[in-house]
């Protein structure tokens, strides 16, 4: 246990007291108490900045399950610190924002902040854990707390739907990661990420290694809403806006990016990793921006925009893997993709957080988020408009904001890698820049859409549920802080380059550092006339043209058939899954005992016959067979004929009598085979049971006493014949191959000396193996009491008289 463990667990520990505070001090907004936590944490984590800048890392160990190699090991390096600062920093702003956003009177604040603090711990745990099992633990905790937060207004149907969808998809990915962890730790013999990296040489060639790659990527793609798993994110917008701003733009959706970045040192050597990460990322960028344009809901646009931007960062992380495959380390051309990824990750957190908060303000002050109803709010809400302008322009990649810089670097990275001769890229590498540019054009279009439709154009006051006015100052401070960061980073990008970006990039690409390559992060606003600038101009002009002609081509979206949409597919999958399982269940579980008996006997026959055949176990030896006498043949004939007659008997009474015949014949067999105790018992028991059968027979209702034959069914006949055959074969085979001598000799020798008896059967029953008898009489006693209770208490029928 160290201070860092305390820092990670602080939010969840504080959350224990939150309901108490919410209940005891209802006059003070609970958020003010909560605010202390992220403020403390952000100042604590900032103290590590000088350390990580000089390349130091900080670890602490807390034993959890040492015998299994599972310990809560924290590991803080540049990457972890960057995320920790994002989580705590944006967490501070979001808590402040939520104080003004959520009404202390109307909302269950205690619940909200407990979930939020739980999420904060989970997220810090994800980014600061070195042990993969602990990482997985916190990973699932983010899924659970996110689920709880999305369904915060649980009385709304859409909230529950969104929460369930995100839960199913992210937990699916989480379980895939657990599989990946299992493979990776089996290969490397350790759950530690650093130790796995250290033993990379020996495990890289293993065949299961690529399976682990795919499993880890499934986790990253589902969490970070990459195509085709992005569908949960737009539905998660039913959450309160502070949650959307925090979880679904700045932190949780970046957990997948973190995972990719954290495991890049281990997996990036695989070409599969490079292909999957970069292609899925670039397609998500394209697809997300394409779909954002057709949304009407402000948060819906922002959700698709988040998907698209996450795709951008993901693709950059994938392209950055190319840096490991080239010899020319010193020019740093390939590391630029990773630098751009980290830079854009920071930028996205700033502008997307502010945009979500702006959307929340608009929603809060006008009562709607539908851009068809909004318009002309510029004069009424000038500060919100400023926030929205800066945020969207940065998102669209317009100078002088930070989005411009990272977009330029993105284009550089894309051009560098697709132009290289790695992985046979030249043949179809041109797709990457094309998708990137198209995606960026659409990004530009929806960015314009947000600002123009919300703040400009005609005012439609009659459409709005509330009279719009500017938000209270407390609600404006957090987004203002974020947009000022957007501007500051945009103007002075190099304040980040050595403090946050370089340590993070070094953590992602340790191979480059180890090989002596220098990661030089220098971001300049102006890098001369080059292809990237030209592309930016193309993006801006194409975007403006597309926006102007938007009404003409927007109907194209409706041309897309509904059936192929991923949401439709997801719903159909759930529905079909349910229907199919119901159908299978209804078919198999008929509720009739006879079908279950058919299954049981069928499986017995199949299993035993297959085993007999497969192990070549069938034998038939003649020597253990003793000679057969006439008595035995006669008795066997009686037995067989009575048994056969039972099946063909017309009346039940006949069956009962015939059953008695078989029982007495068996008793005669016991006599014949010299078992007097058995014969005695069999006789008496047979008499008693026949008497009981008769008793039951005379109590049958009149209607079922009518005489009828057992109806013939081929299936039943077949199965019973097969069961008979199987049992016979097993009996013959086991008789023909005895492996050991019987232990009966011991009993015969010792019955008089040890047990002072002469009747060996009885001595075995009460002395040698009396334990069995003890429980057999217990069975009898239970049966007697059972019959007594069934008959005595049946009339009440479970109802007290």
């Amino acid at each position, binding site marked *: 246990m160290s201070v860092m463990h305390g820092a990670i667990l602080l939010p969840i520990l504080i959350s224990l007291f939150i309901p108490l505070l919410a209940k005891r001090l209802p006059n003070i907004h609970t958020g003010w108490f909560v605010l202390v936590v992220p403020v403390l944490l952000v100042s604590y984590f900032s103290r590590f900045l000088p350390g990580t800048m000089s390349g130091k890392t900080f670890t602490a160990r807390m034993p959890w399950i040492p015998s299994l190699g599972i310990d809560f090991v924290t590991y803080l390096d540049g990457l972890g610190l960057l995320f920790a600062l994002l989580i705590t920093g944006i967490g501070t702003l979001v808590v402040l924002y939520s104080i003004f956003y959520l009404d202390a009177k109307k909302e269950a604040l205690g619940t909200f902040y407990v979930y939020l603090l739980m999420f904060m711990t989970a997220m810090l745990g994800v980014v600061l854990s070195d042990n993969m099992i602990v990482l997985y633990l916190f990973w699932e905790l983010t899924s659970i707390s996110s689920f709880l937060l999305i369904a915060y207004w649980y009385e709304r149907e859409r909230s529950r739907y969104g929460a369930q969808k995100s839960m199913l998809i992210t937990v699916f990915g989480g379980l895939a990661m657990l599989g990946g962890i299992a493979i990776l730790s089996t290969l490397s013999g350790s759950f530690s990420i650093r130790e796995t990296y250290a033993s990379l040489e020996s495990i890289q060639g293993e065949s299961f290694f690529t399976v682990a790659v795919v499993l880890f990527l499934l986790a990253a793609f589902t969490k970070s809403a990459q195509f085709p798993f992005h569908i949960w994110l737009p539905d998660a917008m039913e959450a309160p806006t502070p949650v959307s701003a925090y979880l679904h733009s700045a932190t949780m959706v970046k957990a997948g990016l973190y995972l990719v970045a954290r495991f890049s040192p281990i997996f990036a050597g695989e070409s599969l990793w490079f292909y999957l990460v970069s292609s899925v990322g670039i397609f998500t960028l394209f697809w997300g921006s394409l779909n954002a344009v057709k949304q009407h809901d402000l948060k819906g646009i922002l959700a698709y925009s988040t998907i698209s931007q996450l795709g951008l960062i993901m693709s950059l992380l994938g392209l950055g893997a190319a840096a490991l495959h080239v010899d020319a380390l010193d020019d740093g051309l390939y590391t630029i993709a990773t630098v751009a990824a980290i830079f854009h990750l920071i930028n996205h957190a700033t502008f997307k957080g502010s945009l979500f908060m702006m959307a929340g303000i608009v929603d809060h002050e006008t009562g709607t988020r539908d851009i068809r109803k909004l318009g002309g709010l510029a004069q009424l809400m000038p500060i919100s408009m400023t926030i929205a302008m800066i945020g969207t322009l940065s998102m669209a990649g317009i100078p002088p904001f930070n989005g411009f810089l990272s977009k330029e670097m993105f284009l550089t990275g894309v051009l560098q890698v697709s132009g290289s001769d790695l992985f046979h890229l030249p043949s179809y590498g041109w797709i990457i820049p094309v998708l990137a540019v198209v995606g960026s054009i659409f990004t530009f279009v929806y960015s314009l859409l947000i600002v123009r439709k919300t703040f400009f154009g005609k005012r439609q006051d009659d459409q709005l549920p509330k009279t719009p006015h500017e938000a209270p100052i407390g609600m404006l401070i957090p987004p203002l802080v974020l947009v000022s960061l957007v501007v500051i980073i945009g103007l002075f990008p190099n304040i980040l380059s050595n403090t946050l970006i370089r340590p993070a990039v070094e953590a992602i690409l340790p191979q480059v550092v180890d090989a002596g390559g220098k990661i030089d992060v220098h971001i300049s606003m102006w890098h001369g006339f080059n292809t990237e600038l030209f592309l930016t101009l193309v993006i801006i002009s194409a975007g403006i043209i597309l926006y102007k002609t938007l009404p003409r081509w927007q109907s194209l979206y409706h041309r897309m058939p509904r059936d192929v949409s991923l949401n439709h597919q997801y719903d159909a999958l759930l529905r079909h899954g349910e229907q199919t399982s119901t159908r299978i269940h209804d078919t198999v579980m008929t509720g009739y005992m006879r079908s279950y008996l058919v299954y049981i006997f069928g499986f017995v026959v199949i299993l035993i016959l297959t085993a007999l055949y497969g192990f070549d176990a069938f034998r038939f030896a003649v020597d253990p067979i003793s000679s057969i006498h006439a008595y035995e043949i006669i008795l066997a004939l009686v037995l067989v004929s009575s048994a056969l007659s039972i099946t063909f008997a017309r009346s039940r009474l006949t069956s009962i009598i015939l059953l008695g015949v078989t029982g007495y014949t068996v008793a005669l067999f016991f006599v014949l085979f010299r078992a*007097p*105790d058995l014969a*005695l*018992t069999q006789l*008496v*028991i047979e008499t*008693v049971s026949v008497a*009981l059968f008769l*008793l039951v027979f005379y*109590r049958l209702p009149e209607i079922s006493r009518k005489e009828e034959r057992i109806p013939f069914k081929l299936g039943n006949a077949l199965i019973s014949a097969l069961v008979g055959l199987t049992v016979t074969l097993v009996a013959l085979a086991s008789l023909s191959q005895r492996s050991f001598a019987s232990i009966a000799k011991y009993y015969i020798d010792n019955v008089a000396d040890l*047990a*002072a*008896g*002469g*009747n060996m*059967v*009885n*001595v075995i*029953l*009460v*002395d040698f193996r*009396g*334990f069995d*008898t*003890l429980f057999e*009489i*217990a069975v*009898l*006693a239970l*049966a*007697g*009491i059972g*019959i*007594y209770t069934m*008959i*005595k208490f049946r009339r009440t029928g479970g109802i007290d008289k």
Partner: protein
Amino acid sequence: MKKQAKKHTNDVILESATSFITFIIFLFAVYLFFAGHYTPGGGFIGGLVTASALVLILLAYDIKTLRRILPFDYKWITALGMLIAVLTASGALVFNVPFFTHAHDYFNLPLFGKTSLHTAMLFDLGVYLVVVGVTMTIIQTIGESD
């Protein structure tokens, strides 16, 4: 369900035959029980035969008569039998030997002369009582219900 009418028949022969056959059956049961350790028999079969003697009384007379002759609750007899069996088995623990270790020795008893006594007989007594108790519980319960 049809209520079975109480029989008021004049079964003199059956009743008088029962009154002494019962004792013979009962003696046979006792014989089987005691002989069990050396010859065929034992607690289980002895118990069943005892129960059949009681069933004979039941057939010749009726349940009330049987209850007057033998005023037992057979559920308690079952419980008593279980108790004797378990105590016999666990009695071994008192002498620091494993559960269910039987002891036997030869004694010179008055009237019987040299006789072997065996704790297995006690256990068998438990079996005997359980079998009688269970059989009679079942038959009485079913017989009484209508």
